[in-house]
């Protein structure tokens, strides 16, 4: 390897020194921008979460909120904030983090902005699993979440098997995924038509995505799942960084492509599944989080942390808007879909014009 190691003299030569300086400058610039964006998103998240905690039929002042959070509130404010609003806000936050991470993982992995779990049928797979468990098997509680996870994994397995042709093309994966999405939605629709009204209402959350039923008991399994899945996903970001350059380049720089991709897909599926189990398929959050994060950081990496924060802000903000800011009260999934759908249309129109076909 001596041939490659520059001698001591050339290492400190003028050109090299200037080069190292400019490399450091460019890298520092990108890092600073990313950190600033993350801090800004954390501030935005604190603001919207605060709004979610103080707004409602029993409005609180900021002083009252702080006192309540510190355990010095009245019985009423403690019940309303800690018992009702905080679980809802935290569920929204974690659901947003999960969808944001899942979406950006899939999009970078498959190098396609359409490849997010809500478009390719992973979320609806979870829905189908949940609805099946409630309506056909009469399951409740954690068992339903397990069924949702099973549904998401079946969906992903189906897409992987159908899209696999001795290799994985992002484009084919998305097309097969859209088909699987329709299939899973048909399963949900069919089961709903066979259910009685009372059961159907319980299963409705699996169609739109809503935080209305959030409670501390539902938050717990979600928080535990996040504790495991989020760090693992962040660790897999290193592999995404080279997978972005295509399978050939990734393999050339020493990544075990198939294994790394399988790990990332399983993590992305599980993130989408636990989020869907907690709040239903909150539409388009996974789809928009990554692109918004990328637009803000102007980076080209997977931007996992910014995407997770964007997801959290989008869900909590949409829920606050759906509850308090709009003339009619709407579930969070309706609000996010109203925002996300136009972006999908714009993306399709733009990519068709560019001739890259999404």
């Amino acid at each position: 390897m001596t041939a490659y190691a520059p001698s001591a003299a050339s290492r400190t030569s003028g050109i090299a020194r200037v080069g190292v300086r400019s490399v450091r400058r460019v890298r520092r610039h990108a890092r600073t921008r990313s950190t600033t964006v993350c801090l800004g998103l954390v501030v935005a998240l604190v603001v919207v979460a605060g709004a979610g905690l103080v707004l409602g039929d029993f409005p609180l002042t900021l002083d009252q909120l702080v006192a309540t959070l510190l355990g010095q509130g009245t019985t009423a404010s403690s019940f309303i904030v800690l018992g009702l609003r905080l679980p809802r806000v935290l569920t929204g936050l974690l659901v947003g983090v999960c969808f944001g991470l899942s979406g950006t993982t899939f999009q970078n992995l498959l190098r396609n902005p359409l490849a997010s779990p809500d478009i390719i049928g992973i979320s609806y797979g979870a829905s189908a699993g949940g609805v099946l468990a409630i309506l056909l098997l009469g399951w409740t509680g954690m068992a339903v979440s397990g069924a949702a996870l099973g549904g998401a994994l079946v969906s992903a397995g189906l897409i992987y098997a159908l899209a696999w042709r001795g290799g994985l093309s992002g484009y084919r994966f998305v097309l097969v995924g859209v088909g699987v999405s329709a299939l899973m939605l048909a399963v949900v629709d069919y089961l709903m038509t066979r259910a009685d009204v009372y059961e159907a209402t319980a299963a409705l959350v699996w169609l739109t995505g809503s935080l209305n039923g959030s409670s501390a008991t539902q938050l717990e399994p979600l928080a535990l799942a996040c504790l495991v899945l989020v760090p693992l996903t962040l660790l897999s970001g290193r592999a995404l960084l080279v997978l972005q350059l295509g399978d050939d380049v990734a393999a050339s720089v020493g990544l075990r492509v198939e294994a790394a991709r399988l790990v990332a897909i399983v993590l992305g599926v599980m993130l989408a599944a636990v989020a869907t189990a907690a709040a239903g398929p909150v539409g388009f959050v996974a789809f928009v989080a990554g692109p918004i994060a990328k637009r803000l950081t102007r980076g080209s990496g997977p931007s996992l942390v910014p995407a997770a924060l964007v997801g959290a802000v989008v869900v909590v903000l949409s829920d606050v808007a759906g509850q308090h800011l709009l003339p009619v009260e709407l579930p969070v999934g309706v609000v996010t879909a109203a925002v996300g759908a136009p972006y999908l249309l714009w993306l399709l129109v733009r990519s068709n014009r560019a001739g890259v076909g999404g």
Partner: protein
Amino acid sequence: MSETRPLVEGAPDARPHRLETQGLVLSYGDRPVVDDLSVTIPDGRITVIVGANGCGKSTLLRGMARLVRPVRGAVLLDGKSVHDTPSKEVARVLGLLPQAPVAPEGITVTDLVGRGRYPHQGWFRQWGAADDEAVAHALAATGTTELADRRIEDMSGGQRQRVWIAMALAQETDLLLLDEPTTYLDLSHQVDVLDLLTDLNRERGTTIVVVMHDLNLACRYADHMIAMAEGAVAAEGPPSEVVTPELVQRVFGLESLVVADPVSQTPTVVPIGRHHCAERV
């Protein structure tokens, strides 16, 4: 990264790395594309692989870089099968620049070149000073230092190819394989890229293997040429000994004259088609 970048000259790891194939069979589906092929890549030289479309030359290169699993036979790096060696370990010695790689939208030159450092990093070895230096050296070697903060999509085809080569250089491998690095470039940039590869070979001793289409440029830049036909080696050796009208007929199915290149004195193949041929000498 001291184990791969000795700081002192004359470090013990001065032995060049040896790449060879033994009875290699590569196939797509059940159709063998490379059939029972054994070659040894000369150390510290520029080897160019030529052949007609579909002769298996790109597949051979991808097989050598362990991107295609052999059906039979083996690719040996220093006597050890590359498929049985940890992928990162291979990637510190052997690099491949695939044909027409695609960069993510908005990526800067520095970011892209930096990703070539992947095999030198791990869970506990994050980005460090050695990585900054490797990227700076790769940029300097390819003349792209001034482009460090530019985005790839704003650059010309020739500049892009230099940046991709810089990424492969940042990987700091002794062996560098390139799959048609000149294909989408105009003539001046083709010569530019081949000169750059020659510089790397002469100055750093990097063993270079290139698959390319232009037979005349191949003859000029190759120290060693491997001509392939139907998944096998039709001929190999220095271009001046290998390239004859008979070989061109056998490999490309083309009638031709072989004359001396007035600039480099290497063989030049002048094709003979059905039209525009004056009275033959």
